[in-house]
């Protein structure tokens, strides 16, 4: 077991505290880092946190078909969810459709999935994107799959809570519709993050380093959590156990 946490492990360490005290977190498809974070948070909570993993046979409670996740969110039964994006901008808009002037796209992403809906209905949506670069974190997305904020008078019970990347953690200030740098991962600085980020954000003069996992949490992650995640993401689970520096086993969508 390496002592150097992987980028994925640091992201997991950043996500786990964001789930403290919640009742139910759901994790969508192609989300290995959120899945591991949610299962670790459940263990830390002693089972008080309910975790629903789409695509899992063992940790997926849904029995009413593809619509149930969305209905469940609209019923207010899901406290937290995760979204990624090919592009994420400084207003927390998410682009899952493509680069270019739609429908004339230069590059096609898979599509919006349920983002346009869930972003409005789940109180704490945590954005995640391992690649932290001006290419992924942009001033303005080319296509708004899901809007970060809504005007007054629009029914909205949810929205962006934070953005976790392979280099830093931002909190989203919904009232001011902008990101604030909350912490930088080990080895990064406010300056390296500014350079790597395509949107403007707020930052205090002194930004803390993202706390690593405590040793017991780390052991849980590399043990039983990796086992459970392996049901859906075998390659990712192997990397968690190995603790290699790169945790990029699956597309961060």
């Amino acid at each position: 077991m390496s002592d150097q946490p992987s980028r994925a492990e640091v992201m997991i360490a950043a996500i786990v505290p964001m789930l403290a005290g919640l009742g139910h977190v759901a994790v969508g498809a192609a989300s290995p880092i959120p899945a591991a974070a949610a299962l670790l948070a459940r263990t830390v909570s002693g089972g008080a946190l309910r975790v629903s993993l789409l695509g899992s046979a063992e940790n997926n409670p849904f029995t009413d078909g593809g619509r149930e996740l969305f209905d469940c969110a609209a019923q207010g039964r899901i406290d937290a969810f995760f979204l990624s994006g090919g592009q994420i901008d400084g207003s927390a808009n998410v682009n899952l459709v493509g680069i270019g002037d739609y429908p004339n796209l230069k590059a096609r992403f898979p599509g919006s999935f349920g983002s346009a809906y869930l972003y409005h209905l789940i109180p704490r949506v945590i954005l995640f994107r391992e690649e932290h670069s001006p290419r992924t974190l942009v001033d303005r997305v080319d296509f708004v799959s899901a809007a970060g904020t809504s005007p007054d008078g629009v029914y909205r019970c949810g929205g962006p809570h934070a953005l976790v990347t392979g280099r830093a953690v931002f909190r989203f200030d919904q009232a001011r519709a902008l990101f604030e740098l909350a912490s930088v991962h080990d080895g990064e600085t406010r300056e390296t993050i500014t350079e790597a980020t395509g949107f403007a954000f707020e930052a205090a003069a002194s930004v803390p380093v993202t706390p690593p996992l405590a040793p017991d949490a780390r052991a849980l992650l590399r043990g039983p959590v990796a086992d459970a995640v392996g049901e859906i993401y075998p390659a990712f689970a192997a990397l968690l156990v190995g603790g290699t520096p790169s945790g990029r086993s699956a597309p961060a969508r």
Partner: protein
Amino acid sequence: MTDLALSTELTRRRPSTVDALVRKVADGAKVALPPDYSGCAMTAVRGLIAKGVADLHIVGVPSGGLQVDWLIGAGCVSVVEMAAMTLGEFGVPPRFAAAQKARSIIVRDGTCPAIHAGLQAAEKGIPFLPLRGILGSDLLKHRDDWQVVQNPMSDTDDPIVIVPAIAPDVALFHAAKVDRNGNVWIGVRRELMLMAHAAKTTLVTAEEQVDTDFLADPALAAGTIPSLYITDFALAPRGAAPVGLTGAYPADRAALADYVSAAQTQAGFDRWFATAPAHAPA
């Protein structure tokens, strides 16, 4: 550590008592109840009556039967919203008929698909659902919560009824079995799942708790309401007597006949109910 960590212990749930369930139903609550053939929590309804719950707004999904008549007879009900009130071959429930005549309860007559649609709207978190039919029915005249609007998808005249979401405070029903994690098996009785999805609080009594995980069994999973939607559950063997539970025990027709005969008057109902435990074998 591995044992503690992700073991199934984390998800286990123990049953409450029927009394604890009953205490979760507040005066004035909007309570969704199934019809007599779909799993009625009769033992819990007795508990509600014993507690003296008041001013309930009952939603029959889509009709009401014996349990609703009991609650009306015991003075627990202000409003009944339903497509029908029926005891099957025993006709119109007697305390309901008397209360309608005396105008001592508000009856909100509806139609089955509108009740299902209202619950589906709540299930989807939307304010209303459109529905075909109904136009020309006098139901529309008396339901100020229903509207007739122009279908916005049509270029020509196309009136259509919209019905508001029905979001019960409580859904209460009886099921055959609960698993160790609090998942409830209801088989093809999907209206119970709809009620649980739509309600803020779902209370279930069950014949038994079994030490397995229904969601791990592909056949049972398909007919299971996940514990996610179950606020609390209690064990109540023969908890659907005397209306019966499909696959477990039939309606006690003698008890029903006896009830209908006795409950023609309030005094007869009161007498019957005072001795009622004898009608429901433990």
